[in-house]
């Protein structure tokens, strides 16, 4: 997304990109979430989206609170989802979780102090041939079957995040 001056303009740009139609609601909310920089939908953004789509804020919140890819509280710049469905769980997803805890110094659902990372256990996102797999924002990484690979990935993301 290009830098935009106001939240109004940003919402208008996203809605124009997809079209102001109800079937584009989730695509619009996902883009608005990306644009927040902290992977979440604020109350203000939800109100603006409601106006733009001529829907009630309650309907926006119905979607924002139902779907597991959408968050209504600030998360972090990098939202790490560790697949914990059976093809990954039994292919060392616990190693991924343990390494993230050790390297980031946080438990599941806790943001790191620098606001860069947060991780959750997630359900299958179709990367079973790359198990254990991780999804960070919209990118899938795997197999992350060693602590070294996980540390290298975090290092790369930190470099990018601090730019």
């Amino acid at each position, binding site marked *: 997304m290009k830098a935009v001056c106001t939240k109004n303009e940003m919402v208008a740009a996203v809605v124009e990109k997809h079209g102001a139609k109800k079937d584009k609601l989730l695509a619009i909310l996902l883009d608005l979430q990306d644009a927040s920089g902290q992977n979440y939908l604020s109350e203000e953004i939800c109100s603006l989206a409601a106006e733009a789509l001529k829907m009630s804020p309650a309907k926006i919140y119905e*979607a924002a609170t139902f779907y*597991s890819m959408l968050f209504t509280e600030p998360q972090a710049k990098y939202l790490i989802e560790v697949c914990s469905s*059976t093809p990954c769980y039994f292919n060392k997803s616990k190693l991924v979780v343990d390494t993230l805890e050790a390297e980031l110094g946080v438990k599941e659902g806790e943001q790191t102090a620098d606001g860069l990372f947060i991780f959750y256990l997630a*359900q299958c996102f179709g990367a079973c041939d790359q*198990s254990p797999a991780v999804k960070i924002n919209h990118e899938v990484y795997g197999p992350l079957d060693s602590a070294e690979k996980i540390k290298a990935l975090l290092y790369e993301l930190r470099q990018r995040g601090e730019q």
Partner: protein
Amino acid sequence: MRIEAPVLLKKVDIMHDCTSVADYKGCGGFVGFHKALHSGQSAVLDELELAELRGRGGAAIQAHLKWRQLYEMEIFPKYIVCNADEGESGTFKDKILLRDNPLSVIEGMLIAGYVFGAKHGYIYIRGEYRKIQDSFQIALDNAKAAGYLGEKIQGIEGFDYDISIVSGSGAYVCGENSALLNSIEARAGRPRLKIQRLAQVGLFKKPTLVNNVESFACIPVIMEYGGAAFKEMGTSKGGGTKLVCLSGHAKNKGVYEINLGTPLNDLLYSEKFGGGTASGRPIKFVHFGGQSGPIGFEPALNFYYSYEGLWDNGLAMGSGAIVVMDESVSVVEYCREVMRFFVHESCGKCTPCRLGTTRALELLERFAACEAQEGDIERLEQILINIRNLSQCGLGQSADTAVMSAIKGARHEFEACISKKGGQV
């Protein structure tokens, strides 16, 4: 002479740019569509019946039954919807079609649009495949530019049809067709009470066809080669080839296209497919068809991989997922993780599903910690039966399948977890 796989994925290695209509047509793309136009709507339905294509999403219903039902509806507009919400664990084959052969899916949806006189089609792609949504949109734009979508398709007056992408956002339950339609309508993706079928009351309360990605990709193949040839690619209870997904402890994880009727032993052990386990340990059990599918145990996995081959052995194909587990895995722990999935994904509408899966998980956690009590196996079975019988949609109705099949095939592992100490439940 039977046509051998690959058929659905055959063009993938030939096309330079899979979103290019020229590349797609260069290896036979849109031949099926032109044949459909030439032979007429009713003939397409006849070919579909000869083909015996079973829905590739997991329900395995004969596609021609759904199509004929919608064809006979006298209400318009009719909608064509592609279920690309691929959410069953161990399933990643629709991803390959969407990413590497998008025009085959578009061609299938186009043929459906022609048969039903639909003006609009929707493809609901899961939010986790966001990047693939972008490349699929390019394929749609190219198809439109080449006159295969939009107004006056191929110069035919009145044949106006377009396809939009709708994004999912992380809800397995939206793979259930009526929940998916609710999601397109900007509602929470909870299933509907289906007093009438979706062919009668579907999207925006209009008659709707919902089929899986792979099912749509089969349609141009059926029209190109003919229904009888498609049937011959398969077996007595279902025609065609099938995309299967090998994962878990399989050595050679990936998507493979096979003729239905391929021996399961080949899929599991041949170097051409799974190649045994990555660890070298023996295969202990296989979870078929996704979280909602059944578990089969070695050494009883010596049969042909086909609809009837699986059914005759008390199993089912489901999505085509084949999750291999070696001897290091406790069946009880595996079942616990399966139930954890259902607790997370239950939409919450039906109390027996919402609470039942939670209680089943608690029981399975007790088993996994070797703290189960006498009678807990029976308690677990009763909860699972209640979830199945009292839930409104396929999620709850199949939440019991894996665990029940595990208890049937490995009851001794559950019994070994029953605490010998006394005490209250």
